[in-house]
């Protein structure tokens, strides 16, 4: 990790709010897109990102290795996302309703390619997470294993399965969307 970043983290750990603000600026996109990938909902992703930073700020003293800040922050966000998904499951027994609602509310969002978004939603949270951590954020197998507290072998097979499923889902989505486009 760069020296400057390490210094920033140390300063923030000593309660320097200015340093922490710089960290938020530096990591907000990363945390937000991870939460967005997990939850497929901008508002919820924003909430989670905010919560994650607050949690990080109050527990910075517990961070053992400064170089692992990024993993640590992602781990916090990951737990918050699973809490949300759990809550969602309790509140909405059928996932389909939820997907429909999100699909409707995000029509004006041109940022993310529709096919990818739909395909990601078709995966389980664990598989989505594997794709986000490995292919989007570029964490190593070892980093992911430490972050999720699972064996290295599980990380490898989870990533392999997630990629296989995503590839299939994208093929499916592409076909379906093309069909729709021609019809409408």
């Amino acid at each position: 990790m760069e020296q400057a970043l390490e210094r920033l983290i140390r300063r923030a750990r000593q309660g320097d709010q200015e340093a922490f603000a710089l960290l938020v600026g530096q990591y907000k996109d990363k945390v937000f897109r991870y939460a967005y990938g997990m939850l497929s909902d901008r508002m919820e992703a924003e909430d989670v990102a905010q919560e994650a930073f607050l949690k990080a700020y109050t527990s910075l003293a517990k961070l053992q290795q400064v170089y692992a800040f990024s993993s640590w922050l992602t781990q916090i966000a990951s737990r918050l996302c699973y809490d949300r998904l759990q809550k969602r499951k309790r509140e909405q027994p059928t996932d389909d309703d939820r997907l429909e609602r999100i699909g409707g509310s995000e029509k004006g969002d041109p940022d993310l390619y529709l096919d990818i978004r739909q395909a990601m939603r078709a995966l389980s949270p664990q598989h989505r997470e594997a794709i986000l951590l490995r292919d989007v954020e570029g964490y190593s197998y070892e980093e992911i294993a430490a972050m999720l507290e699972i064996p290295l072998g599980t990380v490898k097979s989870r990533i392999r399965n997630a990629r296989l499923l995503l590839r299939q889902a994208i093929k499916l989505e592409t076909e379906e969307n093309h069909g729709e486009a021609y019809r409408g």
Partner: protein
Amino acid sequence: MGKHIEDKLSAYLDDALTTDERIDVEEHMDSCAACSEAFREYVAVRELVRTAFHSVKAPERLEEAVMEAIRPIPAAKPSKRFFYGLAACLLSLLMLLAVLFAIMAPYTTTLITVGYRVTDNLLQAAGHYVSSLPSAFIGLLAGAILLLTGSGLTLKALLNHSPLKEGPS
């Protein structure tokens, strides 16, 4: 050309194979259209997903919201106030328990006595005592309820005035 190597493509993509395995995979792909096509798809999907998500940006207000939330923490003040409030509540609860104990103690003793010595005299005395209880009991119970309500209100008031909810001063 050996058996298909599709299940090794993920590790190959991450450069996580041993040298021997990697050579196997590459040699197989040279002669197997299905596996090399699958590999091209994996690469394309990874690229697509990466591009798609890297175009996602956090809302501008996020940073501000986070800093707004951590700024007004006057470190010692809230915890001190909360601690005093908690202490006051615990004290009233303790007093309440003491009062209740005071009510119940003679009553229990009497009951035990009655249980062990079943004589006309004692029964009469107990009868007299019990008959005198209701008024005293009701009085003390009312006092206890008052105390409980009081401590409850104190707690509520303290929580409402928690400095966490106050704006930056």
